[in-house]
């Protein structure tokens, strides 16, 4: 049994007086214990909404969630809110993009770590703070004793993200969801945080869902990668398959737009024309068609199905990039 099995997860935002908007469209993927899975796509492709739906953190009103989110066999979407509350932070931890705004500005760091322990492990304040100190130490925050009493604005961005990681991992969850954990950080700090995440995940055996638009992050971390476009999975492959032989034109485009050290000097980077905002609803064809270089007439006639590939992945494309074409 998979640790997490997401089946046909859909999220439709419906505001009064506006047309419903399908942010996540029948997304399915699974995460094995200890595995690291990437959800990759441009902003607006539904990757963050997917993670919030798994956590049960979408606003109570204005959206409709359907499908199944099986965590160790139990459907999280069917849990009572209080039962889900018991699981959040204990079974599933989550870290967010902006470490400054994700920490409460008027509560000391120590208490923000300790309160999870108090909640899920029944510790008293003193024991929780003692444990919090060790957790801060474990995520590489120097002088943790002093940091306990400090406030988020008093420490650096990298330290804040480390503190958030300490919070998410405090109760040794079996699954960690990281939503763009390095986007708001300096490049030098990004590498440190990724290394730390990888090390912690390896040590504790925690499974990780890595949500990012940055293929560089995926390359160093993930076992399996799901590429999302317009709320649908368009390609799924093992890491080395995806980087070696991207089949979907979108994936191909994403990889071509990453600068490489080994590309010839003077060669221009490829950009995918347009943006996610240009996509069309999946019902009227392939959402990527307006931006796609490989587009054929069939692409405007209904949604292409997600079909298994020979290499064990899945692909949703009428006219994939041929396997021989290497990434430029």
């Amino acid at each position, binding site marked *: 049994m998979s640790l997490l099995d997401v089946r046909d997860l859909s999220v439709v935002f419906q505001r009064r007086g506006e047309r419903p908007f399908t942010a996540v469209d029948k997304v399915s993927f699974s995460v094995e214990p200890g595995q690291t899975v990437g959800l990759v796509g441009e902003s607006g492709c539904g990757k963050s909404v997917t993670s919030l739906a798994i*956590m049960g*953190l979408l606003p109570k009103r204005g959206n409709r969630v359907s499908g199944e989110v099986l965590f160790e066999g139990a459907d999280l979407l069917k849990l009572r809110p209080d039962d889900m*509350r*018991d*699981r*959040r*932070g*204990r079974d599933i*931890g*989550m870290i*967010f993009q*902006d470490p400054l*705004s*994700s*920490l*409460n*500005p*008027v*509560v*000391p760091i120590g*208490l923000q770590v300790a*309160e*999870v322990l108090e*909640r*899920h492990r029944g510790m008293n304040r003193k024991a929780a703070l003692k444990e919090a100190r060790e957790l801060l130490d474990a995520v590489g925050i120097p002088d943790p004793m002093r940091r306990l009493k400090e*406030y988020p*604005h*008093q420490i650096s961005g990298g330290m804040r993200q480390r503190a*958030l990681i300490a*919070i*998410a991992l405090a109760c040794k969850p079996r699954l960690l969801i990281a939503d763009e954990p390095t986007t708001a950080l300096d490049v030098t700090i990004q590498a440190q945080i990724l290394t730390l995440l990888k090390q912690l995940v390896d040590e504790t055996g925690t499974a990780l869902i890595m949500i990012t638009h940055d293929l560089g992050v995926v390359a160093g971390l993930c076992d399996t990668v799901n590429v999302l476009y317009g709320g649908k999975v368009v390609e799924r492959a093992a890491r080395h398959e995806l980087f070696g032989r991207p089949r979907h034109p979108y994936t191909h485009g994403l990889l071509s737009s990453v600068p490489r050290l080994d590309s010839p000097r003077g060669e221009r980077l490829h950009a995918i024309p347009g943006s996610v905002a240009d996509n069309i609803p999946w019902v009227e064809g392939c959402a990527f068609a307006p931006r796609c270089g490989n587009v054929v007439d069939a692409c405007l006639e209904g949604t292409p199905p997600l079909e298994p590939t020979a290499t064990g992945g899945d692909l949703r494309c009428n006219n994939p990039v041929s396997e021989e074409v290497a990434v430029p």
Partner: protein
Amino acid sequence: MLRVIVRRLLQLAVTLIALSALIFVWLRNLPGGPVEALLGERATPERRALLIKALGYDQPILVQYAKFMQRVVTGDFGNSIRTGDPVSEVIGRAFPATIELAVVAMIIAIGLGVPLGYLAARHHGRLLDNLSIAGTLLGISIPIFFLGYLLKDVFTQNIHWFPPSGRISTGLDNTNVTGFFVLDGLLTREFDATADALWHLILPAFTLATIPLAVIVRITRASVLDVLNEDYVRTAEAKGLRHRVIRGRHILRNALLPVVTTIGLQTGALLSGAVLTEKVYNWGGLGTLITDSISGGRDYPVLQALILLAALVFVVVNLLVDLSYAFIDPRVRVR
């Protein structure tokens, strides 16, 4: 921290000195001149000359100002024209009544306003929210003296729940220690007096609380709505914390910061409102004193003291509010 306090105290002093200078100029430029204002139009020339000498109006203007300031600082505002009593005594008698009323009104406004504002925000766009918006709009659009009469009519004439006016029932022999009747009752263990004073307080305090209540609901609602969208609230939810903890530690502790500032500013509304409320309920505090000092011939010595006192209260309360920030918002402490 100390530097901030000193700077704010200096600012406060400058404001009050400027205000007293304005009052000095104001008194010198009263219609018909200050002497006529004090004695009336039909005073004899001898009496005039006597008063001019007594008040020092024959001296250079700067000397006069220096003397005026000296008296202001020592709290000596002369005698009331109306009663002949020293102004400080007249004001001292009325002061506790107004403070008691204002404090109870503020307790009502905060005690109801914060929970209502929070609930409205949590029910954003639904019935409770819309009702609270309608209520606050009505609260700030209704002349509060009219509301006072309305409440009085309903609760003292139609159903006799509350006494129509005054601070305490006649015939109740309560001991006067501080002038705060509720407090006096507790101090002297005359609990019937405390109960009676509170009973008299309820209607006027609710009337006076109307506007601060409406404003506090509005600000709390807006502030909670802002905070609900903050990432750290989502983090708190992602931690699986209990509702109680998220509400108290993560939402309200942040959302109440702007509310605290508002509470300071509402002191002004309370002092303004007290003038109206006290007239409706015949309360006998500073507000009544102001009204009487104007309508029964202008009692300028009392008026100038009242104006300075009101400004002092407002400025000091707001200073305290600002300083309290240093203790509730860690981001201020460092600066």
